[in-house]
């Protein structure tokens, strides 16, 4: 059971996380300001982590998109809003991804490169701490001593590194699609 869970964390790290940026862009495009992308993403992770098994998912990117869409739909429903942004067939074929494997691989490569870029910005202390703890198997104390800093400094470096990576993942720089979507509110309250 624990093995299963760990496999899922590893799988999320490698197959889901790299697509987060694309899913955010897609959410902003499809749902505009109707839902809070941050909330949708968090809930989607929560649902994905709850999977008993991931063996049946052969297109993680598509799965992530669909989960995010389902979450957004549920949120709208809960908020008593009517979804005016029904998906067209076209949107679905974008999502479901019938593209040949080569395209999928190339897209995934680009996303991976983005994540790699983020990971390359980790501080040296952060890197060394991970190496000492995870490769050499040192204790917290030994790691701190080796790096010549306090234990809480080690932790702070790691936390800051992780925060930076997570923030970078959420940034919608690429093509300004998120900004362009701003100011157009879609979804209307049922009360009127």
């Amino acid at each position, binding site marked *: 059971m*624990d*093995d299963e*869970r*760990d*496999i*899922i*964390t*590893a*799988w*999320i*790290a*490698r197959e*889901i*996380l790299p697509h*987060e940026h694309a899913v955010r862009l897609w959410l902003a495009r499809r749902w505009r300001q109707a839902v809070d992308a*941050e*909330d949708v*993403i*968090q*809930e*989607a*992770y*929560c*649902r*994905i*982590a709850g999977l008993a098994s991931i*063996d*049946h998912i*052969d297109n993680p990117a598509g799965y992530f998109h669909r989960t995010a869409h389902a979450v957004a739909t549920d949120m709208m429903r809960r908020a008593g809003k009517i979804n005016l942004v029904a998906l067209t067939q076209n949107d679905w074929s974008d999502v479901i991804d*019938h593209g040949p*494997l080569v395209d999928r691989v190339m897209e995934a490569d680009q996303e991976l490169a983005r*994540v*790699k870029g983020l*990971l390359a910005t*980790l501080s040296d202390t*952060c890197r060394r*701490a*991970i*190496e000492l*703890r*995870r*490769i*050499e*198997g*040192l204790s*917290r104390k*030994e790691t701190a001593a080796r790096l010549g800093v306090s234990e*809480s400094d*080690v*932790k702070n470096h*790691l*936390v800051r*590194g*992780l*925060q930076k*990576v*997570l*923030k970078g*993942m*959420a940034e919608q720089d690429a093509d300004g699609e998120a900004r362009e979507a701003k100011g157009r509110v879609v979804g209307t309250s049922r009360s009127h």
Partner: protein
Amino acid sequence: MARPDPTDSIADQAAGWAVDMAYGDMTAESRSALDAWLTADPRHRGAYVRACAGLYAMEDAVIQAAPASAAAAATSSNDNEWQPARRSFARRVMPMAGGMALAASLAAFIVTGLPPTPPAPTRIATARILNLSDGSVATLQPGARIAFAVADGTRTVTLLSGEARFQVAKDKVHPFVVRSGDVYAQATGTVYSVGRVGTTGGTVRVSEGSVLVWPRDDRDQAIVLRAGGTLTLDPALPRPKAAAPAPAPLPLPALAQISLDNVPVAAAVARFNRVNSRRIRIADPAIGNIRIVGLFRADDPEQFAKAVAALSDARIEYHKDVIVIKVK
């Protein structure tokens, strides 16, 4: 240890918790503090999952980038009492209630880090109980012979004769497949036995867990056999005779792709026609004899037809619901 600052954003707090759980000292107190945080807001759980995955990706990147010498030093030097490299992966802590434990462990590391085992030389064995190199145990009945090899991420046992029982070492990443003639039986972690039937067939008996059974080339039509189930399959005979609990058809995703490994086009066409209303017809039998290799979408006969046309230098004609492949 300082708790994540509640004035930070949820993502930042989650990052603090993920690091705390993986690198901090794991006390019952800190665990219940995490539990409290997770239940405080429905968004926290997802944010925590995301942070754990992010941390995992970070470690992944660092470990892969680590100079080989550092890794070697970690394994070879044992002058003082540090733990062997990688073992600490197995010791990440499971911090959460409700089956939400999310730390990375040894199993996960196999998923991410280790290169696939190089193909081991195939060995022919006649002993009674064999410990296979992956940790699985094979018990051979008198007269049974098997060959074991690990290649392309798959552990393959070929049953040359007789009957053998397998206790499969759990390893989700490397499927364990027993081949008896033209019958294949795959499990991840389970106990089952396979016996030869004629030159092409096999009988599969499952004691624990479940096993996928399929005749050659028909992986997409594999049958799930559960504990207590027995199935005899002989591709030389027209139809499989199923015994014991009704075999359940595979869930849909397995049908999504058809993998062809040096199969005559005619046989491949038959497989596409079985699952599609849009049929393929081969106008020239010579085309049907050409062998083809590839992975195709099961629901896209056109793509496959185009590949065949390219391979055999033929052309394609589209009729209503039929794709005809003809010699130019």
